[in-house]
């Protein structure tokens, strides 16, 4: 174990290339934007010509689909396009968009690998490299400077963001083909990647906030991408506003930290926390709480989780996926990045633990009854984020990042797989209208099974190891509260296994419940299935990054993150002593985890492999419970009733009663009293220069009078 936190690194010009990692996607975003507007211009010209020749856009739709190289699909191109509410059109110059964006991502990934290699060759205590700073805001008392800061934690994050990002971009090139906003979409994706990389690489808390708000913006834009529909735009607005609630809290945290440490450089904060615990425990608690409030917004924890399911039910699975795999994990990253701050307050950790466990459980139960395949995955994401925060609450920083990484693998896989299913089913998302798809889309099916197995925590897959490690750490805390949190975690694991295999059974097994005359399910093109295969391999074998102690193998990820997590871990150990589980206990927990995963996976699968009868039965027997669960415990409805409604009412009261009636009434009353003056003003305002001169003269006379009166 390291004896002390690494010193605050100084920037070096030798590492200025780190700036390229976020800069490349930013440049790509700008280029895609230009391409988009060029496309619009050429399309505008084309449209005029086409109308002149009597051809509508639909006449073109079928051609756009020939590129798929799939005859069956192409034949249905026209009605597929109509389903979108768009005519599919040739991409034109906008077709370069995905090339530009994907290329920037692969380049950023290569640079991330280079950074990783440099760090690996450095001695453990010195594994930090930093570019020179950019002096951003001089506040008058301290400067907010931003450097690119690569250490073990940010290197893991950049690898995940750029690696999975590159796969997503590749997949999206196939999925979005033929959309009128092809280049624009990739512009948003690249802008998202830029923001996310800024978030994980910035040395300053405010630099992190740039990325933090940036991903929020891109999420807003991506959710509302098919804005003509109306409701995606509303979901986007909701996401932005709920994120902003968290962001406001985040800002308060930065003010308090600036006051405490005189700097917002995160390395300085991390270095400063251990020395100020005794004198400033309340301030540290509050600062941590404010930042956690921000994390609740971004990482969709109760009470700010309701935006995520809406956001993911938007029409592009790709956007849903970047949320699941990267953006929403920003809160987890933030806590690990500032782990000593959170370790300093046991109360804060307990609050995080309770919020996390409740979120995991509520979202898990909600996922049980969803029919929309993407909603199952969305609530599952919320629930899994709860696990990550549960790990943080137990001081298991590395385990939380481990679950973040494996979750990125398998959730990305599941979202892309769901996208492939939806694509093949002509935009159908209701699992009750699917069934038996394994015959039609074998590649999607097999990879989806791998993702589902990992998510449900079946033994030896990636999700099994990471989830188990979090639960073991929670158990090891050994207090009644943490035993309770652990119990909730175990129950949620059972729920996870159940809803995951329900989803598999409903989608791929049983009878075909769609109208075979209208819908012809088909496998997606290779550009979409190849990323699925890569992710499937990662989901299955990703657990090797962090094998449990009892396996007598090194926990690669924990060792790698040690320089970052040591400070927080040491604070916890000094305050509460070390919590090590005996090997026997650990074996029991592993066995219990395996047993629960297998039992509930089987139950979930068997209950639904025959069809939707069980759902319909439940709905008929206890409709109120089904509705309650289906609506995520009606929390969102309650918000509408008790927060949105009163806010709207208050706005109305302020505008009509206070402003128009009371304040303006008073003003108009005064005006009426001085009607004589008003009449003259009216004349003046009619534009007569003479009256104006008269008025100016009157003012001068008044001035003169005042002078004379005084002397």
């Amino acid at each position, binding site marked *: 174990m390291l004896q002390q936190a690494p010193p605050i690194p100084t920037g070096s010009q030798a590492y200025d290339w780190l700036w390229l990692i976020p800069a490349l996607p930013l440049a790509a975003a700008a280029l895609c934007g230009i391409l988009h507007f060029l496309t619009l211009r050429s399309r505008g010209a084309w449209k005029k010509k086409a109308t002149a020749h009597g051809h509508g856009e639909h006449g073109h739709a079928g051609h756009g689909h020939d590129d798929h190289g799939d005859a069956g699909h192409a034949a249905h191109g026209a009605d597929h396009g109509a389903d979108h509410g768009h005519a599919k059109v040739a991409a034109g110059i906008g077709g370069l968009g995905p090339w530009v964006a994907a290329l920037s991502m692969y380049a950023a990934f290569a640079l991330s690998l280079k950074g990783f290699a440099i760090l690996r060759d450095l001695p453990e205590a010195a594994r930090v490299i930093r570019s020179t700073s950019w002096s951003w805001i001089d506040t*008058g008392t301290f400067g907010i400077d931003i450097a690119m800061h690569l250490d073990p934690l940010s290197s893991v994050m950049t690898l995940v963001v750029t690696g999975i990002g590159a796969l997503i971009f590749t997949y999206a090139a196939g999925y979005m083909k033929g959309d009128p906003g092809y280049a624009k979409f990739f512009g948003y994706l690249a802008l998202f990647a830029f923001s996310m990389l800024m978030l994980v690489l910035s040395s300053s808390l405010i630099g992190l906030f740039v990325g933090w708000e940036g991903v929020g913006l891109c999420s807003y834009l991506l959710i509302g991408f098919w804005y003509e*529909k109306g409701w995606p735009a*509303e979901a986007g607005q909701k996401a932005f506003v709920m994120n902003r609630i968290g962001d406001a809290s985040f800002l308060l945290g930065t003010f308090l930290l600036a006051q405490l440490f005189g700097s917002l450089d995160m390395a300085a904060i991390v270095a400063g926390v251990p020395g100020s615990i005794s004198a400033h425990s309340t301030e540290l608690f509050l600062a941590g709480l404010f930042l956690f409030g921000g994390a609740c917004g971004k990482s969709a924890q109760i009470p700010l989780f309701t935006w995520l399911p809406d956001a993911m039910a938007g029409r592009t699975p790709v956007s849903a996926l970047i949320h699941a795999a990267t953006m929403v994990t920003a809160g987890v990253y933030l806590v690990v990045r500032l782990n000593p701050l959170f370790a300093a307050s046991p109360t804060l950790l307990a609050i995080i633990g309770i919020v996390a466990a409740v979120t995991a459980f509520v979202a898990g139960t909600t996922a049980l009854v969803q029919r929309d395949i993407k909603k199952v995955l969305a609530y599952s994401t919320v629930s899994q984020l709860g696990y990550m925060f549960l790990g943080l609450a137990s001081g298991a920083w590395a385990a939380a990042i481990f679950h973040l990484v494996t979750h990125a693998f398998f959730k990305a896989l599941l979202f892309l797989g769901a996208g492939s299913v939806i694509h093949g089913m002509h935009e159908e998302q209701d699992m009750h209208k699917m069934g038996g798809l394994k015959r039609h889309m074998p590649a999607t099916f097999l990879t989806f099974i791998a993702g589902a197995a990992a998510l449900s925590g079946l033994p030896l897959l990636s999700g099994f190891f990471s989830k188990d490690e979090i639960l073991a750490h929670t158990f090891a805390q050994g207090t009644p509260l943490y035993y309770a949190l652990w119990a909730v975690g175990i129950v949620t694991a059972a729920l996870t296994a159940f809803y995951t295999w329900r989803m598999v059974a409903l989608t791929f097994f049983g009878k075909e419940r769609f109208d075979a005359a209208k819908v012809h399910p088909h496998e997606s093109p290779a550009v979409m299935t190849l990323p699925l295969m890569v992710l499937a391999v990662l989901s299955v074998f990703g657990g090797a990054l962090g094998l449990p102690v009892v396996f007598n193998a090194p926990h690669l990820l924990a060792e790698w993150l040690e320089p970052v997590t040591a400070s927080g871990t040491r604070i916890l150990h000094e305050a509460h002593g070390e919590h090590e589980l005996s090997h026997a206990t650990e074996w029991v927990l592993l066995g219990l985890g395996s047993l629960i995963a297998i039992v509930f996976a089987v139950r979930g699968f068997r209950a639904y492999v025959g069809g939707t009868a069980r759902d319909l039965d439940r709905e008929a027997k206890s409709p109120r419970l089904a509705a309650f669960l289906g609506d995520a415990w009606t929390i969102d409805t309650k918000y509408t009733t008790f927060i949105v409604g009163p806010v709207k009412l208050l706005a109305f009261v302020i*505008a009509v009663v206070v402003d128009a009636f009371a304040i303006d009434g008073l003003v108009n009353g005064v005006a009426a009293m001085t009607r004589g003056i008003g009449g003259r003003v009216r004349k003046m305002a009619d534009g007569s220069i003479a009256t104006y001169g008269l008025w*100016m003269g009157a003012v001068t006379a008044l*001035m003169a009078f005042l002078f004379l009166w*005084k002397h």
Partner: protein
Amino acid sequence: MPTNVLTLTVLVFLPLVGALLIAATPSKAVGLQRGIALVATLAVAWVGMLLCLDFDGSTAAVQFGQTAPWFTLPGGVDVHYRLGMDGISVLLVGLTSILGPIVVLSTWGHIHERVKEFMIWLLVMQTGMLGVFLSLDLILFYVFWETSLIPLYFILGIWGGERRLYATIKFFLYTVAGSLVMLIAAIWLIWTAGTADVMKLIDVAGAMPVDTQLWLFAAFALAFAIKVPVMPFHTWLPDAHTEAPTSGSVILAGVLLKMGTYGLLRFGIAMFPGAALQAAPWMMALGVIGIVYGAFLAMAQTDVKRLIACSSVSHLGYVVLGLFALTEAGLRGSLLQMVNHGLSTGLLFLLIGMIYERRHTRALDQYGGIASVMPFFALFLVFAVLSSVGLPGLNGFVGEYLILLGTWQASPWLAAIAVTGVIFGAVYLLMATRKMLFGPVVHSENRSLSDLNGREIGLMLPIVALCVWIGVQPNAFLDRTDGSLRDVVSRIERARSARTASVEIVPVHRLEIEAR
């Protein structure tokens, strides 16, 4: 270019020269009038920019100063024609100069009647505004203050919308009330101090007893608070904005309101630091109330122009809050936010004007789906909204962050309430954006709207560039305010220590009495 040629006098009176030239043209020669106005404002922008770039922000000293004796008041006080630039005025002078040609270009689209008169008023107003920011003689300041307001009465009253008379009279009554109170206080101050030189007055007034300062502060602050406007003196603003032609709204939001916040800083805080210190909690409270109140007001609006006007009440609440936090960060943020608000809200009004010229309605429910018909318009509108809600990387964030940080240093509770404005701002602006741009095209009239033309895009580009520049490299702007703001802060600190000293003296004094 040597600054001894491009003096402040040239800057201030260039627009007036343009106005005189336009007055000499035949009234039918609309093209010529527009041309002269554009050339004059471009020249102003050029000179203004050069002077701002030449300005050295490391010192509080007045730069490019020009003085000439003017007349002597009865009582023997000499009034001077005295211009000069310092860190408090430099950014606002830059803003006023740059907005000139943009506003003139925007009138191509909506001013078709009495163009000659309009251009004259516009240019006279610019002279007035530049004069307000640059004059360092209190009498001269007052003259320019009135000069900049009168043209707006006419612009509002002649070229305004349906309820223009109501809006004009309301605007007139409010401002006259404020101006008169300020005039009386100014004259009293000048006589008492025996000088009208602002820089001398700042020294003299700062040494006055706090009770005297408070009366004078109250009189000045009232005039400026109406101008800002600070809630509850704000109700003239939504009416004025709604009825004003686009160019009038842009100037009003962009520069005229800043005369109020500028005045609060120079003639409120810098001149009467003792009084400002006492009034600070109240003024901060008014600022926070303005932020929240304006946001709720904006949420309830169905008229998009009125909504933006109400958002100004909220945004300027931030400026007032930051000013009276009396901290370095707060003052820097407020000064920058004055410019930011001018840019982002100016951009919003320009855009609303452009769509109004096409569709002739301001009702939000008459729009919807505009993004698919006018993609360039949508791009610029979303940009303006993001700048306005303070997205990091654009200008608004820097100002807002500094203001909130400065407020936190003075009062964490008020900062915690003010930070909700970050949420509410997103609520009403994104709501308006969604209703205008997104969803299906419901009204068939909207289907045939033409997208922005080259002139419209071109005139907005400088604003867009500035928004990005300030957002990415704010220090280039903040540095220019540094010297003067440090001077203001040191005056406040002196007043603060004087206050604590006097509090300490009391018990000693009492002890002596008791001893006797």
